[in-house]
């Protein structure tokens, strides 16, 4: 119990989180860069063409990881917002606020890359399919979260109101995940994130996993940099700021 509270206290302490984030960033950024570059090369050059979709299937190497990232970032954002709301932890609110713009970006990427895949494969850029619609709702949740924060001047109120929105929006995550199973979706069922054997040969699967892990580490690195900026902007009066910016 004692150690749990010490741990909790340290993670609520802005100067500690600021310094730790600075130390950790390169440990995420470099493996991310290596995995993404290797994954892109392997996906574009080494992986064999698909027997049905030819070379066009290679869009999966940017589409699936960005779609995964858009959902994972939302889960991280909502978790941080929930911690901020329940334990009144300012650093958690700062982390949640730092997630939104990154998440919105990768939601757009997943939608656009999906459309670019849909046109040659389905014959259309867009259909009002459950999976596609739920992903569009995710984008609106991110944009709503950003707009709500921007619209409230008082930081404490902005934190609480946006946290409630983030938590309500969590309902959308299982809808995205299971939409292809619950409804007759045009979108194909997951081919990697399954409990049984993945339905892909290893030469095709490896680049996908590299991109998945690489982009997840990339997100962690970008989040840590944004979090430090957010903490500095919030801790205007604190004396420790002087030591870290000079």
């Amino acid at each position: 119990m004692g150690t749990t509270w010490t741990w909790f206290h340290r993670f609520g302490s802005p100067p500690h989180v600021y310094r730790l984030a600075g130390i950790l960033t390169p440990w995420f950024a470099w493996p991310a860069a290596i995995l993404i570059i290797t994954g892109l090369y392997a996906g574009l050059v080494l992986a064999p063409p698909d027997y049905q979709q030819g070379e066009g299937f290679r869009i999966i190497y940017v589409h699936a990881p960005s779609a995964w990232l858009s959902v994972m970032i939302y889960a991280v954002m909502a978790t941080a917002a929930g911690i901020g709301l329940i334990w009144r932890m300012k650093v958690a609110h700062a982390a949640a606020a730092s997630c939104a713009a990154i998440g919105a970006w990768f939601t757009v990427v997943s939608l656009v890359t999906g459309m670019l895949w849909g046109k040659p494969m389905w014959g259309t850029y867009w259909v009002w399919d459950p999976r596609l619609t739920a992903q569009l709702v995710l984008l609106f949740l991110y944009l709503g979260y950003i707009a709500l924060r921007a619209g409230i001047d008082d930081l404490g109120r902005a934190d609480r109101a946006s946290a409630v929105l983030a938590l309500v929006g969590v309902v959308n995550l299982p809808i995205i995940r299971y939409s292809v199973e619950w409804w007759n979706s045009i979108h194909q069922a997951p081919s990697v994130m399954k409990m049984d054997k993945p339905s892909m040969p290893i030469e095709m699967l490896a680049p996908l996993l590299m991109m998945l892990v690489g982009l997840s580490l990339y997100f962690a690195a970008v989040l840590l940099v944004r979090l430090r900026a957010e903490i500095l902007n919030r801790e205007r009066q604190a004396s420790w700021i002087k030591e870290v910016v000079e």
Partner: protein
Amino acid sequence: MSEFFAMGGYAAFLWPAYAITLLAIIVNVVNARRALQQAREQARRRIATSSEGQSS
């Protein structure tokens, strides 16, 4: 080489998909670094003005 860029006829869909992904990756790094730089700059300025106020 040109065969690689043709991507079996999918070039018009595949390369824009990779381009927007790379754009997002780069833009998010640039934005995050800029945000941190600005935050540090502002903090430095605040400290400078508050210490001037104390010395006078």
